């Protein structure tokens, strides 16, 4: 039997009553690259955080070298040689490469004075042993993302890491940089390091991984040798569920084109995005986290105005440079982050709901408080917001009720075009159903809805048409009848760029 260095046995973890990992099993061998695969929310990140001791499993065991271990925090796991490199790099931008490698563990002379010569010598040895060349005196902020990753890897090895976890290391690298990184990864594998590799790019896995473990909805699905599997096989394992929930989708006769965007581009975020949105239509915008879906929505709403491209409303070209303008043009945007962008948590429900349309409750800029309260009350009542009173602070409501308040607020502006960004994330099942029913209703009344969602069943269940975004490009366009979980996932993860 092959030796295992790390083993997870029946590990489960829940957050506020929701189980996100169910009896997950996993084993890692020295000198292998083991890929971890799954959709958004499949449980990959949570699993990694359990391994690094950031989270503690509710039950289940972790074995290191066949010995059971319990990590109380990330420091414990680092001590036994587990290092993780996340998408967000954590270097100190104003310190140089060598110092970043040894941060917090500067070699000392006489027990107190930093031994700079030793620091640079050891840093050089370390980078040489990894077979990379970076100027040790360069400040971290001057490095490319790829170089920064290498410095992080070097830091991991300066504390004798035996297990290296890489979370989407290639997502912001160029092809050449990816090749370089893979060379480094292969070197590490040769020297016996065990590597857990998370990536959404299936093609890459075939290039670099030895084995792959698939998670889905928090369940362990399968582990297989990469040579004995295929892309289609992996896709099937990733999605492989049927739509269990019923969606109250009503067929609506599609009206005229309300919103038309042509080749809109925001440098570094998305490029040449074009689509049409009709009256009475729900257009689903699918893609992985970080594909640029939210950025497209924010650009349409004027938060980050587009660099180039055309936006037309009812055939008239418009330029939208601020949310203020967007609202006047009849747009409304229910943002992904309720707490930060949707609500003013410290304020009561009334001013929260009336905020975008405050002008309507003012005569010569003088607020008509009674009218405003009555309006907010009606809006909240229509959305069935559960609160003690309309004077309650928004912060005190549950997630689902907060979302209803945000919806009440935006619907009160009578928008023609409604953009919903993850409209049902983190809310309870009942509210979720209510939101879906509401969407259907609004579309039936002729509203045009653009819905961003990471939940494939929601996308498939609610959309009339679906566009898929991948790394800032539209990679596919499906009608409701054509779309399946498999072809959406394929479009969201494929490497090749397809025009729209």
């Amino acid at each position: 039997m092959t030796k295992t260095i790390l083993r997870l046995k029946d590990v489960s973890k829940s957050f506020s009553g929701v189980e996100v990992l169910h009896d997950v099993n996993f084993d890692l061998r020295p000198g292998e690259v083991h890929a971890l695969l799954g959709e958004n929310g499949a449980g990959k990140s949570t699993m990694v955080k359990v391994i690094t001791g950031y989270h503690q499993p509710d039950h289940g065991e972790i074995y290191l070298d066949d010995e059971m271990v319990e990590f109380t925090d990330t420091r414990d796991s680092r001590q036994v040689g587990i290092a993780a490199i996340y998408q967000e790099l954590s270097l100190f931008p104003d310190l140089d490469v060598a110092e970043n490698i040894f941060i917090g563990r500067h070699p000392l002379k006489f027990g107190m004075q930093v031994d700079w010569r030793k620091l640079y010598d050891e840093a050089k040895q370390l980078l040489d042993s990894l077979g990379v060349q970076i100027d040790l005196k360069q400040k971290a902020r001057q490095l490319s993302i790829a170089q920064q990753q290498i410095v992080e890897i070097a830091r991991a090895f300066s504390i004798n890491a035996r297990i290296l976890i890489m979370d989407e290391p290639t997502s912001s690298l160029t092809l050449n940089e990816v090749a370089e990184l893979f060379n480094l990864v292969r070197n590490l594998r040769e020297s016996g390091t065990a590597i857990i590799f998370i990536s959404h790019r299936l093609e890459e896995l075939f290039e670099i991984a030895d084995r792959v473990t698939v998670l889905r909805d928090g369940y362990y699905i399968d582990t297989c040798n990469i040579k004995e599997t295929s892309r289609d096989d992996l896709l099937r394992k990733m999605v492989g569920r049927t739509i269990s929930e019923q969606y109250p989708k009503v067929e609506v006769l599609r009206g005229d084109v309300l919103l038309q965007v042509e080749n809109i581009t925001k440098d570094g975020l998305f490029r040449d995005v074009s689509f049409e949105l009709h009256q009475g239509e729900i257009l689903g915008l699918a893609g992985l986290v970080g594909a640029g879906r939210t950025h497209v929505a924010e650009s349409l709403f004027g938060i980050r105005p587009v660099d180039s491209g055309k936006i037309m409303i009812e055939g008239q070209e418009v330029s939208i440079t601020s949310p203020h303008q967007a609202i006047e043009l009849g747009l409304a945007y229910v943002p992904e982050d309720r707490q930060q962008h949707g609500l003013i948590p410290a304020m009561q429900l009334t001013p929260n709901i009336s905020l975008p349309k405050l002008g309507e409750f003012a005569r010569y800029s003088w607020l008509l408080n009674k009218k405003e309260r009555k309006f907010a009350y009606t809006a909240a009542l229509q959305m069935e917001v559960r609160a003690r009173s309309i004077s309650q602070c928004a912060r005190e409501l549950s997630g689902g009720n907060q979302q209803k308040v945000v919806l009440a607020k935006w619907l009160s502006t009578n928008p023609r075009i409604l953009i919903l960004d993850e409209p049902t994330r983190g809310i309870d099942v009942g509210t979720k159903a209510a939101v879906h029913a509401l969407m259907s209703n609004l579309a039936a009344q002729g509203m045009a809805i653009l819905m961003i969602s990471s939940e494939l069943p929601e996308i498939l269940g609610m959309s009339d048409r679906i566009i898929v975004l991948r790394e800032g490009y539209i990679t596919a366009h499906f009608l409701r009848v054509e779309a399946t979980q498999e072809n959406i996932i394929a479009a969201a993860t494929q490497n090749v760029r397809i025009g729209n």
Partner: protein
Amino acid sequence: MDARASKGARPRLSFWDIFSRYREIGITVFILILVVVVTLRTPSFLTANNLRDILMNISILMIVALGQTMVILTKGIDLSVSSMIGLVAMMVAFVMKEHPETPVFAIVLLGMALGTVAGSFNSIIITFGKVPPIIATLGTLSVYRGLVFFYSGGTWINSYELPRGIKILSKGELLGLPNLIVIAFLIAVIVYLFLKYTRTGRNIFAVGSNVEAAEYAGIRPQRIVFLVYLLSGLLSGLGAVLWVSRFESAQTNTALGFELQTVTAAVIGGVSISGGVGTVPGVILGALLLGMIQNALTLVRISPFWQLAAQGLLIIIAVVIDRVISTRVVRTST
């Protein structure tokens, strides 16, 4: 709202809820305790004359502190108020010396206009220059003070050089109250109504509480930020004219260090330095508490240096209470 809840029983509020919602109650209690303690030691404290003195002393502070409050509500700070007062005071005093016939109301308007100009420089630096408010106003604090010297050539304007009208502005009486107190009260009412009942006032709170959500809701935060520094300048300009009127002079060091008193009054009054929270009555009480402590310490013959220390201590206590409350409230609401 579901029907059950809207009819709803009165929600039960915990001690902390009440304390945090009605900060004014806490300060009032503190003021009452102070009055009792000081009066027991020095009976002359609680006399009409002394109370009138206290109110006269805090009137200008209150007016300028209300401008400061609007700034702090947007998470900013205006350190330049004292220098704006010094500069405007010197300028209007010179005008009055050269043209004693100018009507007093014109002088008041001139002072407010000059203050507005000075304040709008802060606005420009902060909104267009994207300079953090504390740095921008720290800069203008020095610049405006420098301009006072430049403008006056280092000389003072003394009482005998000022027309009689300006002196009456603050000391004359209306309904048995000195004009100064009446003016401060009027300004407080106006700011109260502005913050509570106008769209712009509401937007100030929204921007201070969550600038991103405010922007997403179509508010243009830069305009609000521009406005509050401008208003702070306007109220400082008014304060400057009243200062000349009350102290019958304009000096190069007029109002030196006053900016910290305005911040102290606002913070003691419950205006949160993290923005979005604060009330006009709270600030009035904050200024009153500050004035009373200074007065009481003088009455019991404690050195002015201790007064400064007491002011510092108060601001720290106020902020600590703020922090304790905010952590409590978050804890109980989740």
